[in-house]
């Protein structure tokens, strides 16, 4: 089977924020357990409040859920030429502008910052700008995530 090449014209493309992500307490607890995190601020509201947070605090990599939902818009775009079964995660970064806590409603705007041919495959760098919308309709930056994925070519 020959895989299609990744579309080189993806660079500079962006995908607007689609559905809202509601950060729930049980999701924070579930994600924390899944990464074997035991800090009480993920599980116990009083412990989170004692640290000055309004509600349960998400683990440092929780934003990947929101970022990968945004990435899915690109990966599932038939025009992208990305074969998900050949995707390997190469790099990841989270920059938190403020903590993510239960009750947040998050939006993610996706930007394709780079597409680079690598052998028969390609390295694609995406950036998700994750934000909340305040009562005055202004955006409040919550986190910026950047991901590089390697789409492996034949024999890679």
């Amino acid at each position, binding site marked *: 089977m020959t895989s299609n090449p990744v579309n080189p014209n993806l660079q500079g493309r962006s995908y607007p924020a689609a559905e809202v992500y509601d950060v729930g307490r049980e*999701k924070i607890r*579930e*994600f924390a*357990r*899944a*990464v*074997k*995190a*035991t*800090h009480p*601020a*993920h599980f116990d509201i009083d412990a989170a409040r004692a*640290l000055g*947070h309004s509600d349960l*605090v*998400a*683990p*440092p*990599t929780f934003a*990947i*859920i929101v970022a*990968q*939902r945004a990435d899915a818009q690109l990966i599932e775009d038939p025009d992208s030429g990305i074969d*998900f*079964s*050949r*995707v*390997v*995660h*190469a*790099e*990841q*970064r*989270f*920059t*938190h502008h403020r*903590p993510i806590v239960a009750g947040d409603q998050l939006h993610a705007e996706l930007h394709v910052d780079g597409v680079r041919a690598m052998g028969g495959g390609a390295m694609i760098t995406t950036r998700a700008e994750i934000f909340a919308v305040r009562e005055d309709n202004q955006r409040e930056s919550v986190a910026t995530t950047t991901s590089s994925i390697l789409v*492996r070519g034949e*024999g*890679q």
Partner: protein
Amino acid sequence: MSLKLEELTVGQEIGTATIEVTRQDLVKYAGASGDFNPIHWNESFATSVELPGVIAHGMFTMGSAVQLVSDWAGDPAAVVDYQTRFTKPVLVTDTTGTSEPGAVIEVGGVVGALDAEARTARIDLTVTFAGQKVLMKSQAVVKLA
């Protein structure tokens, strides 16, 4: 928070952690994160795409390694920046039905840099599996009091 920048020195160790991983842990992570790529839970699929077997999500390794930093900092929200490169896969063997782990990940952290102006410490993590580094340039920036 009790950590004070003035009391830290570059090169200081923050501790170590051992993370045992099973196939079930990968299924749990898939469900919690929404990343259902079958290379993380299906052996025949993983080998069909030229992988040596089922491998852990890079994000499982990254996400579990940072707990050392969250606990050291005293507040997970103090981790204001966290980055890594994924260099080697963590191969998780099928030990279902036994009490054995399918893989063991070792984590260590040292203070890599201090920024007195931003009041942050950069923690450099060393994350190994089977004697090889699986994460490179794994750095967490912690906001200090």
